[in-house]
């Protein structure tokens, strides 16, 4: 039983960066921007937080838990915001191709992260190829529910995590309500569905695209930050984040663009991602199991395409640059 509880607990931790990434990408895609730069933005969010945390930990005498959380958090948001704005400027203002821009930003983001990660390691003159922000990580991993200790293994499995696990759920739920029930949510969806109609209805298409992409990017960036500060116990190593950004984009498809669906699908993907550690399979088969999240995504894509239910399709203008009709 304890093994199961531990598995689920790890799956939640594994799924949380994916949830941030997926929620951010859903909000972005609802504006019609297919931001394939999300993996790169998550990298940049992570390294920005690491840079902030690194200097705070190294420069100050005593580390206050509050500042240890806030400084990396703000740095992370700032870094992902700048990258998202770059994406918007290229695709919305300069009308560049979204796919090319997104892929370029992902390549750039991974390189940016590794470059500055490497630089920080150099500053430390460290012998190991990683750097460790233990004091910062401690603040991130502090349990928000003090009572979780008394709840047995299943209580611990759910309630013993740091605040960012729950923040991810809250953001996803709020995003779902925002999209479904609010006026700006309706307007945002209309921009992604049919920007010409939104424009004619007096909605500022450019503003909505910028806002949705920036906020979405910042949320995704938090996923990168969580991965370093909580999941990896404050240890940055180059390329450590891996392909989780792409997994987040796969979750967007898997949850058919619904933030509420993305919560459970993220944990499911997280579970599939680490499943090989908990079942007894020969080494040679591990890649097959690691492939599962992508395989189910393809199955969902096929299923939704076959069923052709209009509500389950991607936003109609996704990936399409909007030009106001001119004569």
């Amino acid at each position, binding site marked *: 039983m304890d093994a199961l509880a531990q598995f689920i607990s790890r799956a939640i931790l594994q799924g949380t960066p994916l949830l941030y990434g997926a929620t951010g990408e859903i909000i972005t895609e609802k504006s019609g921007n297919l931001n394939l730069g999300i993996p790169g933005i998550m990298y940049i969010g992570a390294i920005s937080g690491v840079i902030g945390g690194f200097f705070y930990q190294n420069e100050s005498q005593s580390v206050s838990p509050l500042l240890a959380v806030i400084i990396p958090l703000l740095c992370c948001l700032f870094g992902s915001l700048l990258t998202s704005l770059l994406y918007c400027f290229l695709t919305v203002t300069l009308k560049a191709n979204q796919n090319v821009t997104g892929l370029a930003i992902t390549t750039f983001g991974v390189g940016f992260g590794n470059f500055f990660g490497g630089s920080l390691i150099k500053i430390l003159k460290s012998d190991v190829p990683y750097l460790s922000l233990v004091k910062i990580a401690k603040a991130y991993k502090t349990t928000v529910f003090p009572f979780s200790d008394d709840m047995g293994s299943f209580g611990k499995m759910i309630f013993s995590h740091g605040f960012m696990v729950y923040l991810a759920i809250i953001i996803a739920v709020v995003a779902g309500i925002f999209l479904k*029930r*609010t*006026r700006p949510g*309706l*307007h945002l*969806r*209309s921009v992604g*569905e*049919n920007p*010409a*109609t*939104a424009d*004619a*209805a*007096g*909605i500022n298409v450019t503003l909505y695209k910028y806002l949705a992409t920036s906020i979405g990017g910042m949320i995704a960036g938090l996923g990168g930050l969580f991965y370093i500060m909580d999941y990896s116990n404050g240890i940055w190593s180059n390329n450590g984040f891996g392909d989780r950004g792409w997994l987040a984009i796969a979750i967007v498809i898997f949850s058919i663009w619904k933030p509420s669906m993305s919560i459970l699908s993220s944990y499911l993907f997280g579970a599939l991602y680490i499943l090989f550690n908990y079942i007894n399979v020969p080494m040679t088969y591990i890649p097959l199991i690691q492939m599962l999240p992508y395989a189910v995504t393809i199955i969902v894509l096929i299923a939704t395409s076959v069923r052709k239910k*209009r*509500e389950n399709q991607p936003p*109609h203008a996704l990936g399409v640059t909007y030009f106001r009709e001119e*004569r």
Partner: protein
Amino acid sequence: MSPCVFSVNFNTGGTLILNALELKNVTKRFGDVVANNNINLTVKSGEILAILGENGSGKTTLMNMIAGIYFPDEGSIYVNGKPVTISSPKDAFNLKIGMIHQHFKLVDLFTATENIVLGINDKHKFNIKDAEKRVAEISAKYGFDIDPKKKIYDMSVSEKQTVEIVKVLYRGADILILDEPTAVLTPQETEKLFTVIKKMKEDGKSIIIITHKMHEVLSVSDRVAILRRGEYIDTVVTAETNEAQLTEMMVGKKISLNISRSEPKNSVDRLIVKNLNLTNADGVKVLDNISFTAKSGEILGVAGIAGSGQKELLESIAGLINSSKGEVTYIDPSNNSKIDLRKKTPMQIRELGVRLSFVPEDRLGMGLVGNMDIIDNMMLRSYKNGHSLFLDKKPPKKLADKIIKELEVVTPSATTPVRRLSGGNVQKVLVGREISSAPTVLMAAYPVRGLDINSSYTIYNLLNKQKENGVAIIFVGEDLDVLLELCDRILVISSGAVSGIVDGRTAKKEEIGLLMTKAKGAKENEE
């Protein structure tokens, strides 16, 4: 210009009536093209004003300026006597002006109500249930038949139009502009729409309706304003005018263009179209029992209001649409055998010598790839000829050079991407390529659209030359003067049906104008 000019009318009782809307000396240019020149227009409160004009007469441009989509270059607009500036659709909403566009602006995935409230930013709490209630109220008041919760993708064209109208009314519009609202409706739906329009008028709203169907103008409007080639002609009271007078004002006097036209020689039947029918995805009949014969060595003109089925007709013949019913028979000049084109693929039809040079609105059209150069575009038609792995660019290069020289295409070189050429030169490349393959039937749709005078004459000469070579030419045009001088016979279509075939040498412009605006079903009792 004095900012406080109030324009008022006095009716016979002496009470003051403000004009709902007034345009003074409004001019709009697109580049060198003057779309609206010095237009004056008055809309009274509580009246239905019809705007009548041919294609390209500037009706929609004018209305777009009132709705805030375009901004006038010159002139002033008054609403309820006050001078106003309308620089965005939002400004128009605030002035209680609403436009129902010909192409609906709706989000398919949303419900009727979601579409209706889209873009409204009032202080009320956002509550879709309340909005649904208000939509139902408005529908009941004017007699609309609409389910507030229905998704747009489940709706018929007529329902979508209703949503557009309710959208405008929901925002409290007092002036409604309807851009060709009946073009997509069945006669029954049109009847329903007119009932609603009259109800809105009784409610004190002013309605502007753009249409070119004469009987609709006469049956629904109080006054008619006529535009022609971007110029304002006149506004007349509907009760005091008739079809003939309106048509004459709409098409104007005949202008002589001096296009040469030779007598057809050795004319034989080449293409026989019989009872062609086509229903589009919305269930609207776009081709209605079309029958005609195209003869060799002759130019057959096709006249009609834009969107009357011209595109579908040509595409049906070329085999690009195969859902149509009817017969298309091609008579092979080599052995006079009859070939049923309906059973052939587009490629086989092309090989028979039936060529379609289609130039739709977006200029580059269906025939050219903008990013490829002239030589590569030539190869789009000959790519099947070669058998080796590598391209043989010599023949297409030769052809490209020949077209550039003979048709005087202005281009830096044959390797310039065609999208960098001006509209006229693009058309020359397209038409030149289609002609180069020695067709037996040449279909050209709007080949001179957007061209300057000289380029237009180059195209006319090209067509005439082909005609002398014995090609059967089908020329879809929009300018009646050109059709009357270039074509030997003119097929007039209205709402997808043939409303008449006239002789290009003897027909009168007004005659064609009347045929073009004739309603379906009205033709039997007039002929």
